[in-house]
């Protein structure tokens, strides 16, 4: 394939990725961004670097923070996948097989439709492949050995893509050094600075997948394909039509994307991000095309109905009982999201805080969330717990996109006048509960009634009460009561 066609196909790939993500995965970039909080602090850098794969993770989180502007996030992802493809192409000895350099990036694109896949894996692969490209130009067993050892620390087990590539090129006994080193570096790492991780996690990568102890087979397949493809291109006969391979690849990619596409998850995330951006009309337009198929989606749609002044249209949309208005607390990083937003607007500040906190703490890879830390700071300001709010604001102050907001919020700390003059804070303080009592989800209707009876301006409480009462009639009585378990904090 000539150079011009190579550049054109790579550019076309980047554009296709961008369009694919923007059209089919709306909200995905913003969702990933809200599940981390990149900080420009030395402590944050050291924390990342304290485990295997830390550098890849640090770079990935640095890039992901730009998804605060979702379109920018998708552009960066398209660029990364294209860099990945171009890097793979640089490892090929024969440019006529350039089309095959798209295989792993396309697989990666399909794989990333899984919301638990972390960008760290892609960054680690890119860095490993760049080392492969370097090795092709300057082979050397010594620097390959050093790169294997350091690479395991810096980018994690993806370094073995490089090690495998080097072994396949060497084809002599020197590869034994690399193999022995690879085994040793994993064992020594596990026995020293990775003692607090199971073998499975150490070998499969600490930050490649959000769920611990879960290693998708696709992750392994992509790594193997990336490592073996260059060697394969060396032994394959010269292709007759590269364009045909490209077309075949794009058809394969299309099928892969089609079968991996999880419509319900995509919708939930899209709703969640629209709630975050208060795009109420957008939610309703989307819901009219594709009715919510879960309680969580219904919470977003019902909130949008009220916020857009179209509350009377509630029966037009598919309902899931009272749980479609406000969900009970669920320990994951998706389910509580919209309910926390409902509580916030109702003036149920402690509940909004609790749902926001639990959503953040449900990030099982121990990350914090910019979005939810902002909400927690707001709740603590309303609660007058200014020292805690200040802690959150000072942390957010070290981020890129929340810094300005955090600086602005500082004026409310220990400043009752500023709070009273702020329309949102003053309203929420006026509508919140006046008396203390224990929250009890099964009696939400009573809690909403109290909220409204204390302040008749709280029309949202009245609407939610009416909706709750109406939807409750259609429910059975065997709903489980959820109280949770203490953990001794």
């Amino acid at each position, binding site marked *: 394939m000539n150079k011009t066609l190579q550049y054109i196909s790579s550019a076309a790939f980047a554009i296709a990725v961008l369009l694919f993500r923007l059209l089919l995965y709306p909200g995905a970039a913003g969702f990933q961004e809200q599940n981390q909080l990149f900080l420009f602090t030395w*402590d944050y850098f050291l924390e990342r670097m304290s485990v295997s794969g830390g550098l890849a993770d640090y770079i990935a989180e640095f890039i992901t923070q730009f998804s605060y502007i979702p379109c920018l996030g998708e552009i960066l992802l398209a660029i990364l996948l294209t860099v990945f493809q171009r890097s793979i192409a640089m490892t090929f000895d024969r440019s006529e097989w350039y089309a095959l350099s798209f295989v792993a990036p396309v697989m990666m694109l399909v794989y990333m439709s899984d919301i638990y896949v972390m960008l760290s894996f892609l960054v680690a692969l890119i860095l490993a492949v760049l080392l492969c490209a370097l090795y092709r130009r300057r082979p050397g067993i010594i620097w390959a050995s050093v790169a294997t050892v350091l690479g395991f620390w810096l980018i994690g087990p993806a370094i073995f893509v490089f090690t495998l590539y080097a072994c396949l090129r060497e084809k002599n006994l020197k590869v034994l050094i690399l193999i022995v080193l690879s085994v040793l570096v994993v064992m020594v790492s596990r*026995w020293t600075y990775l*003692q*607090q*991780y*199971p*073998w499975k*996690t150490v070998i499969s990568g600490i930050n490649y997948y959000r769920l*611990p*102890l879960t290693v998708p087979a696709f992750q392994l397949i992509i790594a193997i394909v990336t490592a073996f493809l260059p060697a394969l291109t060396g032994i394959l006969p010269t292709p007759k039509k590269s364009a045909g391979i490209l077309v075949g690849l794009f058809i394969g990619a299309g099928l892969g994307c089609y079968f991996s596409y999880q419509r319900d998850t995509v919708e939930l995330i899209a709703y969640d991000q629209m709630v975050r951006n208060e795009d109420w009309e957008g939610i309703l337009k989307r819901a009219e095309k594709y009715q919510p198929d879960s309680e969580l989606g219904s919470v977003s749609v019902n909130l949008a109905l009220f916020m857009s002044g179209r509350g009377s249209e509630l029966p037009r949309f598919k309902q899931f009982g009272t749980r479609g208005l406000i969900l009970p*607390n669920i*320990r994951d990083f998706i389910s509580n999201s919209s309910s926390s937003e409902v509580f916030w607007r109702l003036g*149920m500040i*402690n*509940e909004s*805080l*609790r749902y926001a*906190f*639990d959503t*953040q*703490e*449900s*990030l*099982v*890879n*121990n*990350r*914090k969330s910019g979005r939810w830390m902002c909400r927690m700071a707001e709740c603590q300001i*309303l*609660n*007058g*717990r200014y*020292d*805690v709010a*200040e*802690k959150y604001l*000072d*942390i957010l102050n070290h981020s890129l996109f929340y810094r300005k907001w955090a600086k602005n919020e500082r004026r409310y700390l220990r400043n009752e006048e500023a709070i009273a003059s702020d329309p949102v804070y003053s309203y929420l303080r006026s509508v919140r*509960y*006046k*008396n*203390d*009592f*224990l*929250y*009890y989800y099964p009696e939400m209707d009573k*809690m909403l009634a109290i909220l409204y009876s204390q302040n008749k301006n709280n029309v949202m409480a009245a609407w939610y009460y009416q909706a709750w009462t109406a939807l409750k009639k259609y429910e059975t009585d065997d709903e489980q009561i959820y*109280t*949770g*378990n*203490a*953990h*001794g*904090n």
Partner: protein
Amino acid sequence: MMNRYILATLTAISIFLVSCSRETVLREELPQIFPDYIGVTVPAGTAPLNFDIPEEYSKVFAKVSDSRGNTLTAKGRYAGFNVGKWHEITEANVGDTLTVTVAGYKDGRWEQFRPFMIFVSEYPLEDYGVTYRKFAPGYETYSKIGIYQRNIHNFKEEPILEGSLVPGQCMGCHTANATSPEQFLFHVRGKHGATVIQEDGRRRWLETQTDSTISRAVYSYWHPSGEYLAHSNNIIRQLFWTGNNERYVEVYDDVSDVIVHDVRNDQYILTPLLMTEDFETYPAFSRDGKTLFFCSAPKVDVPAQAEDLHYNLCSISFDKDTETFGSQVDTLIDAVAAGKSVTFPRPSYDGRWLLYSYADFGCFPINHKEADLWLLDLQDGSTHPLERANSSYCESFHNWSSDSHWILFTSRRGDSLYSRVYIAQIDEDGNASKPFLLPQKDPGFYHKTLFTFNVPDFTKEKVDFKARGVYEEAFSDQRVKVTVKQ
């Protein structure tokens, strides 16, 4: 032209000299330092009390001096003292005072504050350090949890066990036998839950739920002989206060009992006196092992009457030779009558005192702003609050050093939510000194961290816990089943 340059240069030099020669401003007030170490009592040889002053000062200078003319200085963004030199000056002044002079740099000049004192206790604190759990404080979920140990003679913290090694499981409190790392346990909660007991370097994973008990072991305490454990069995619930900003979480038990566990053969010893319909919890053995303290609340309808839940401090005799309990339960502190609640009894290891939490109601003082530390004199039965140790925020999760001259506890006084570890001296009359916050190398640590410190305890020596094999042991679900002694 040349003259103008000379004039400008001379002017600049003059301005520089004037600015350099500005006198230090003396201020009458004490410095606002964080942590508040003004007037605290410290043992010799612990980590230095590094501190910071308000942000408006770009630099801080601190000088520690004693009556013999020895001095120790620190200067920088915060006052960070050399560990070895801090040990030297505190060890040279046991039973004496140190004077700390602090100056802050602001607007091109130093402002020197009124010096303050630090008292060096005559009681040493020879324990290696403290153990504690750390996680994000709040509600039902935590992304990262771990048990750690911290050398209190320097700033080194190490994990004993982190949640990353047993994903999806929660870890209970590290419970040592009178601060000894030779014998300790912790509970693992979750699908692969167990009670992990390590004795003399060997550990075993127990299934502590039996047909005769209501739950797995929850709050545990070692018999001084090391042959028995007292556990409470609790069905724990938590609910959430929704109305105001004073309180967020309420933890209560649906039911609870107290049992004794013979760790030599992993059998329970039960008595109906500790398994009534009332709520028995928080067991603790006396130093001689002949008395089992515990808390007991008359049964109420929870959660509806959660605010009517009041716990007394009770005791029952225990004879380890015959493995029998006494025939009656004694009430040592009738908190029910006072409309209060006693929880978390911790007898001193010299047998003299019993330290406990005193709150308005309930069994979980960490969530009660009003919870304070009180001391019971086991010789005459008198009680009193530890006024110098208490604050307007909650104090709880306390315990004794191995020599019983020091206590540690957690308090939320720092920011009302994140618990931190404080250490105070207890004198012969049972009075606490002003406590000091567990020092950190960077005093800003506490403001930056999103972890709360939970259930701290002293450890006499460094805990040797091999993380290797823990994951496999936890997820294998191979457990030693505890049975009930017939």
